[in-house]
């Protein structure tokens, strides 16, 4: 009989190996799925894991999709580390896109290049505004942030539909529900000719560095996370949980809104009903698979971007629905959560229940300490040097 036995402390190896194993399991399930559909699994894997990286152009497209995923995930990591469950990044992304789009529509032939920073700031403001609604309701009314932020996703989408079907509709657009294409001056500058990669990539990578410093090298970043790990300790130390809530939601809302601005003034170039592409939800998976660690999320954002591109290619080359992307995304998070068990537990073949070495080991083991209010530390990848062992 296979049994789980608590490890004396969380396994470092497994905190990195678990996402790798989860990916392997997802691939195996993917192969079975292709076989069940009567498609060639080798071809399927090629489309998902080789095509997106085989040429310079493909790598560029991979980066284009990884950028918003990474930006949103950076903000979400701050939330999840502080035990704030912002599930509505998709809505914050849409609001950022709307406000940024509004600014971009003001540009005409005579507008200067200053419009670009204005668009980006508008996106940040839009995302922050939307997230602050969730923060306000949680702070003042104790309303559950999971439900509020999610409901606001639907509201944000309807707001976008209202604008593109109504007041902002392009009069010369043959009645299609979309705004006019933004002036070229309002386009986010690209990094090089012939590729759609924009300065958004640099912003996202700068964000990785800033977040790393904030989380692991500043007192504010430490205070921000203690509430998520040990609420009682945070209260004792006088760290404000209200402040942590507002910081977490404003940062993640701002990041999501910025991603929205980069998306509409970048690859899309106008507001359409298809702005919400699920990046806000996919970024949640990016955050968990990347261990809520800034550097880890770079890798997981690229992986998730592969799933997106693979899904599009599967549609055009194998005649499979694009929604295959969502299937793999969900599977990856499922398998990851299951594999993360190995961080705190070891598998043992045992005839009989494993008796702990001494009474109370399970209670005192840091890896399995009863996690009453705190976010499961197993989901977090921390820098060892940033925090002594408690």
């Amino acid at each position, binding site marked *: 009989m296979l049994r789980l036995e608590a490890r004396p402390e969380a396994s470092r190896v497994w905190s990195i190996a678990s996402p790798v194993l989860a990916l392997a399991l997802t691939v195996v399930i993917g192969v079975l799925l292709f076989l069940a559909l009567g498609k060639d699994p080798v071809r399927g894997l090629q489309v998902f894991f080789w095509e997106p990286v085989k040429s310079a152009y493909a790598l560029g497209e991979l980066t284009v999709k990884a950028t918003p995923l990474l930006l949103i995930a950076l903000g979400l990591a701050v939330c999840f580390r502080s035990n704030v469950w912002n599930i509505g990044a998709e809505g914050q992304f849409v609001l950022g896109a709307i406000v940024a789009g509004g600014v971009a529509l003001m540009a005409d032939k005579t507008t200067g290049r200053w419009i670009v920073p204005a668009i980006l700031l508008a996106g940040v403001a839009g995302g922050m505004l939307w997230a602050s609604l969730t923060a306000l309701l949680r702070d003042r009314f104790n309303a559950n942030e999971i439900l*509020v932020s999610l409901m606001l996703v639907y509201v944000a989408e309807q707001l976008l539909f209202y604008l593109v079907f109504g007041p902002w509709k392009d009069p010369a657009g043959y009645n299609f529900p979309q705004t006019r294409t933004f002036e070229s001056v309002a386009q986010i500058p690209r990094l090089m000719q012939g590729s759609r990669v924009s300065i958004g990539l640099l912003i996202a990578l700068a964000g990785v560095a800033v977040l790393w410093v904030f989380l692991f090298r500043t007192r504010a970043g430490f205070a921000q996370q203690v509430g998520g790990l040990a609420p009682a300790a945070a209260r004792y130390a006088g760290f404000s949980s209200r402040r942590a809530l507002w910081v977490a939601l404003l940062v993640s809302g701002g990041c999501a809104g910025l991603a929205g601005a980069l998306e509409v003034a970048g690859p899309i170039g106008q507001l359409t009903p298809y702005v919400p592409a699920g990046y806000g939800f996919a970024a949640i998976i990016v955050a968990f698979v990347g261990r809520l660690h800034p550097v880890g999320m770079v890798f997981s954002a690229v992986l998730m971007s592969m799933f997106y591109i693979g899904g599009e290619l599967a549609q055009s080359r194998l005649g499979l629905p694009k929604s295959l992307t969502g299937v793999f995304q*969900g599977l990856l*998070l499922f398998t990851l959560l299951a594999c993360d068990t190995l961080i705190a537990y070891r598998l043992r073949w045992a005839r009989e229940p494993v008796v702990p070495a001494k009474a109370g080991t399970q209670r005192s083991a840091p890896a399995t300490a009863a996690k009453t209010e705190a976010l499961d530390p197993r989901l977090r990848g921390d820098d060892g040097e940033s925090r002594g062992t408690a």
Partner: protein
Amino acid sequence: MESYALLFAATLNAGTVLALAALGLLVNEKAGVVNLGAEGMMLCAALAGFVAVVHTGSDVLGFVAGAAAGAVLAAAFGWLVIWLNTNQYATGLALSLFGAGFSAFAGIRYVQEKLPERPRFSIPVLGDIPLVGPALFRQHPMVYVAIALVLFLVWFLYRSRAGLVLRSVGESPDSAHSLGYPVRRIRLAAVVAGGALCGLAGSYLAVIYTPLWVEGMVAGRGWIALALTTFATWRPARVLLGAYLFGGVTMLQFHLQGSGVEVPSQFLTMLPYLATIAVLALISRNPAWIRINMPASLGKPFHPGT
């Protein structure tokens, strides 16, 4: 007047979808497990029910297929959160994301399908009473099933031994464990039952309420059902009332659209979501009130033998 009777009937119909799902979630929350996967379970069940009806022509088989789909997904979720102690929020979210993706993927061939015209239901004699008849006695049987389910759950949770054990597992799993109750199995049974009811709600939506299948057709009802358990402070009868209230908000939206009120349709579509936020804020305002009513171990993992 006639139109109001029809509006009332439609409200009961729309409320039934929410009531079935919310009652299911209530059962697994009473046992101490939060399942954020309702939206995903309902989507997969909606598709399973629709496909079953397309191929067999039997509504009953559609409901069975939907409930089975919900139960299977809930069992996978339950195994992860109860035996592997994964984080309940993250796992439920994974289920919702997976369910949305999988149903869109598997259902692509059924998007254009139409179900045959449904027979109209009416209880003899009672259905012919003016005004009251159309409003109350010409509903699909599932509407009455939802009401019966509330009565059953009130009896089960508060008047039966098994229900007492279920609640004790949600309030204090350690005490239940020390009395010799198989806490994890009871929790799994509650989660699977909750999933089956969410599945029933999903299949009712696709087979009776809208009769069609489109990607993402559950449109947040799973999340609203989740909020309903909180609104109702975990009481079955209040869940039903809350569900009808929200069914009413949904119907109000169509009623306003039909009555020529000069509001863009998108703002009317927002109504149920905004109403959810508003009610959630009002009910949650008093933390003590929530804390008194909430199952004490809700969302907390249970480690036997510690």
